[in-house]
């Protein structure tokens, strides 16, 4: 009985995912300025091209493959694929398996693709100041699992934006070293 209650409590939060209306997705939120500040730095340089190529080099240093680049609008897109296995998830999977008496085998994260989208853009008319904005996100593929007698096939996919400020700080620290310029926060 208690195990059943525990299980339903564990399952409930995942079941109640609300749908976001498209209108809400085209509106700026209270979080927007915070995210922009975290993802953006500006550099006192007139050379946008050099900044863009330095950014590509930094992404390469971080193990990314550049997939798309458009110099005219200062755009770069790069990805890297890595394993997404975590010990914590395996422990949770084992605990749930024991709790559910061998009926519930939750899929764990197996593989991930980390992607970065980067945009440079002149901030003033004379183009002596350039802004760099980068967005990191990841796509994760899960392994297989089982609930009761139903098999969950592998390959289930989910995506998440990366909001860890440290990752952005690290990137900009590397970039400012690469162009010998100070990265100013907005």
């Amino acid at each position, binding site marked *: 009985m208690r195990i059943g209650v525990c299980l339903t409590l564990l399952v409930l939060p995942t079941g109640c995912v609300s*749908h*976001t209306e498209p209108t809400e*997705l085209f509106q700026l939120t209270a979080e927007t300025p915070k995210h*922009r500040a975290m993802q953006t730095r500006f550099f006192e340089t007139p050379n946008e091209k050099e900044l863009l190529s330095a950014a590509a080099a930094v992404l390469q240093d971080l193990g990314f493959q550049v997939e798309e680049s458009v110099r005219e609008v200062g755009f770069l897109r790069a990805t890297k694929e890595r394993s997404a296995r975590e010990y914590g998830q395996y422990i949770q999977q084992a605990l749930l398996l024991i709790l559910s008496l061998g009926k519930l085998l939750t899929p764990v994260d197996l593989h991930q693709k980390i992607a970065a989208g980067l945009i440079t853009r002149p901030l003033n008319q004379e183009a002596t100041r350039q802004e760099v904005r980068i967005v990191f996100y990841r796509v994760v593929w899960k392994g297989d699992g089982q609930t009761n007698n139903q098999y969950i096939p592998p390959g289930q996919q989910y995506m998440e934006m990366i909001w860890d400020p440290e990752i952005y700080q690290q990137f900009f620290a590397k970039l400012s070293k690469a162009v010998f310029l100070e990265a100013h926060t907005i």
Partner: protein
Amino acid sequence: MTDKRYVWAGILLAGSLLLYGCSTPETPKDLLAPTDTQLKIRSMQTRAFELTDRNTAMRGVIASLQDLGFIIERANEPLGLVTAARFAEPNYYDVVSVTVTVRQDTKDKLAVRVNAIYNSKPIDDPKVYQNFFASLERSLFLTKK
């Protein structure tokens, strides 16, 4: 005797196939003709801005898409094309993708057109496009300064 039977069977089969072929409905003549809804959708997806520099306008479009949390997937400067997508957080199974085109409308005006798709279904809610253009206006105004 058997040979003749085969011939008749062949004729019958061919005949039935022919009849079947005749029963396909005729293609309507107005299949590709523009409809009122199409025009309405186009007008709500398009807005003209008093700008002459297309590159600046494109950068403004990209900046406002980034502000809205979109991930830029592709850009083509000569064609004035930007493609972006985002997940309907907190639900990662719904995807919104947009294609924006920026092109010269008149001598001193640029037309920006945005097509938005929600889970492979076109969005025809005018509110969505109004919201997008409101954020684009802000971003273009910031770039102009």
